[in-house]
């Protein structure tokens, strides 16, 4: 259960931004990769807890889930992953471990009211 500490870092960052801009943050947009090792629902409820008694109280966490993309040595191109239980190219089936996308845990935008 490390989602709470992650949620707290997100809130801390958003609070700093809110203070710096003299604005109110109403929503935080987060990119979450399927391989980030973070459970979306646990993060959502942790976020609510982390927001309590901060400037972010009442704000929303909007999570965009990012699918895994791998480099396929056989297609010589970036391809979707067949499944997280099957590290192979969704197109041709060649096994691959080269993750190109899917480890993201990144705040990408804030909705602010000035």
């Amino acid at each position: 259960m490390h989602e709470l500490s992650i949620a707290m870092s997100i809130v801390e960052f958003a609070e700093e931004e809110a203070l710096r801009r003299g604005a109110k943050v109403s929503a935080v947009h987060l990119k979450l990769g399927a391989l980030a090792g973070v459970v979306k629902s646990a993060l959502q409820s942790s976020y609510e807890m982390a927001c309590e008694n901060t400037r972010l109280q009442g704000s929303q966490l909007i999570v965009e889930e990012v699918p895994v993309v791998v480099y396929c040595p056989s297609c010589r191109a970036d391809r979707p992953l067949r499944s997280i239980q099957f590290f192979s190219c969704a197109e041709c089936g060649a096994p691959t471990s080269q993750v190109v996308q899917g480890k993201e845990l990144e705040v990408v935008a804030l909705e602010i009211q000035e």
Partner: protein
Amino acid sequence: MNSEPRLVEVRKNVLKQNDLVARALRTRFREAGVFVASLVSSPGSGKTAFLEKALTQLRKAFRVAALVGDLATDNDAARLARSQAPVKQITTGTLCHLEAAMVQSALEGWNLSELDFLFIENVGNLVCPSSYDLGEAMRLVLLSVTEGEDKPLKYPTIFNSADVAIVTKIDLADAVEFDWATASANIQAVRPGMKVFKLSTKSGEGVEDFLKYLEGRLTEARRTSVA
């Protein structure tokens, strides 16, 4: 405050702080010439027993040390101390994983250039440690035969984040009807090309093979860092 909300783009990697500390540690380890291996597994898969064995054996020819993460007790550190190698406990409290900063502060006062191998035993947990880089050169994931062959499919993220898998307690394989072919296929499914070792800390079978591999990795790491 009455204006319409507007969207501002920002860019903040939530784990950036950890990644930065991990990167600094990795550079420090490389410059000191110490090969750092971390261990992850579920609770009870034999990390501590394996580490005690590895430390005892390696100590005959190398300078070894270990950091061990545990939620509440120092039992693991006490067990590992029997190997006579320097061991330091990191008590994480309720935290389910180690972070790079904990490794960094645990290493205060240690002269890393006096070491050949440093092991970092993570908290027994197959979920949370996957997100946190500790600056290690190699991440080992342990899987005991008593846990079943499908562990890699249930926890693909941690298996995918590891470099080498070790199947432990193989002396019990027959008793629990462990299906090696299935386990191996599952490991390869979530991490194609992963190197896998099988060993028993109790009987000693397979331990030597793994330690030879580790020595090879140390030699290779030192050669490439000089070049």
